[in-house]
């Protein structure tokens, strides 16, 4: 029986036999951790193989997730953006409803407190030009709305009805350049006329040079103009310029934010002027104050 041809490749045979002996030895020897050396060696080798494989798989997976898998992300992104927009719109709608509810609640409260015949109205339009500050309400003559009726809000006096139609009416805001309202200022109830100038500020005219007024004083309607009920807040004195013994300019910041008006009340009954000597005190709050308010 002759040895096979493997003798021609004794180097390979040597390697195989040597490795076989090493494996045989390893099966009998424990490593320092108590694990059989062969097991530790095989595990170590396979652990490295597994680590490398896991690295490759992780890389492939990362590449897939980072690039190939992003094919549908664009569509998802578009859909999500659309959903965000829808939700933002919905949120704004909810906020608007909440704000509207709050405004209505305040308006209802004002209506209850004022004890005047009023008609709630909603702003449905604004002036087409910036020079003339008017708004359109959804109440007209069919609702009892007439010209020169006062329009108020929870924050204070808004303006007056100038052009009523059957189902709508144009309201001139206090800040309109042609608007004017008789007012009283401060605890001394100094009389004057607040006039609009087309901007979000009022000029206070015809105030006596001896009047004791100060910056921050509350300006309320006096009622002597026959339009606005007495005691509604018009605004606060923002700036006073004196020249010698006379007033050069008194600026009043309106209490109503005319840019955010949504609901208002139209005072259906004409006001009754009580007079500055009336015991009623000017309102400190936005709505009518004092017992002199008339129904």
């Amino acid at each position: 029986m002759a040895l096979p041809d493997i003798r021609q490749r004794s180097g390979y045979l040597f390697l195989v036999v040597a490795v076989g002996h090493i494996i045989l030895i390893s099966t009998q020897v424990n490593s320092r951790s108590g694990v059989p050396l062969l097991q530790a060696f095989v595990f170590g080798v396979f652990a490295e193989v597994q680590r490398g494989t896991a690295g490759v798989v992780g890389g492939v997976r990362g590449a897939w997730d980072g690039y190939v898998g992003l094919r549908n992300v664009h569509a998802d992104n578009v859909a999500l953006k659309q959903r965000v927009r829808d939700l933002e719109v919905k949120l704004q709608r909810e906020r608007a409803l909440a704000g509207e509810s709050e405004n209505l609640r305040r308006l209802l409260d004002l209506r209850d407190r004022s004890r005047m015949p009023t008609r709630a109205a909603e702003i449905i339009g604004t002036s087409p030009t910036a020079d003339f500050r008017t708004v359109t309400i959804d109440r007209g003559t069919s609702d009892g709305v007439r010209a020169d009726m006062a329009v108020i809000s929870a924050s204070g006096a808004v303006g007056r009805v100038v052009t009523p139609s059957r189902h709508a009416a144009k309201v001139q805001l206090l800040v309109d350049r042609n608007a004017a309202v008789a007012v009283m200022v401060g605890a001394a109830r100094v009389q004057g006329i607040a006039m609009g100038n087309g901007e979000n500020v009022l000029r206070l005219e015809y105030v006596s040079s001896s009047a004791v007024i100060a910056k921050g004083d509350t300006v309320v309607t006096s009622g002597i103009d026959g339009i606005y009920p007495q005691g509604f807040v018009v605004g606060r004195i923002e700036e006073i310029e004196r020249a010698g013994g006379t007033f050069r300019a008194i600026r009043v910041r309106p209490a109503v934010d005319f840019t955010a008006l949504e609901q208002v009340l139209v005072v259906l009954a004409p006001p009754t002027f009580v007079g500055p000597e009336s015991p009623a005190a000017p309102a400190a709050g936005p709505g009518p104050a004092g017992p002199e308010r008339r129904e």
Partner: protein
Amino acid sequence: MNVVRMLAFVAVALVLQTTLARFLVRGSIGVDLVLVAVVYLSLRAGPTVGIVSGSVAGLAQDALTTGIVGIGGLGKTIVGYLAGVVGSAFIVAQPLPRFLVFFAGTIIEMTVITGLHAVLDAGLPVVPVGAIVAQAFGNSLVGLVVFQLADGLPRAAERWRARR
């Protein structure tokens, strides 16, 4: 070389080693007849025979001890392979080269075995260098005797037959 003859040669060496060990070993100084047989076969038949004979002989020798099976096998495989390569690449027909091959083979095997035990922390007692060298001398001398016997016996037999 015939595999059966090779295995028989190794088996004889192993039997002699196990039966005559008490006479061949003095303290730590001894003669490894199995290694001598492996080197002899490798020089005669080449590295492949050296590998196979070394592996078989070493494993058998290990199996008869309480040590780790495979260490002696690996050591004798290495020695058999190297001796076979030397025997194939060079003319090793004189006593001195044969002596050197046996000597180097013993040193290599002892180094491999000692190194493996040290690496594996197997608790092999440290063998003094002098004992290793003495064993190498003993193995080399026994190897030369084996070669002389192997070379001389056939001629003596022929002469004996011619006289008759």
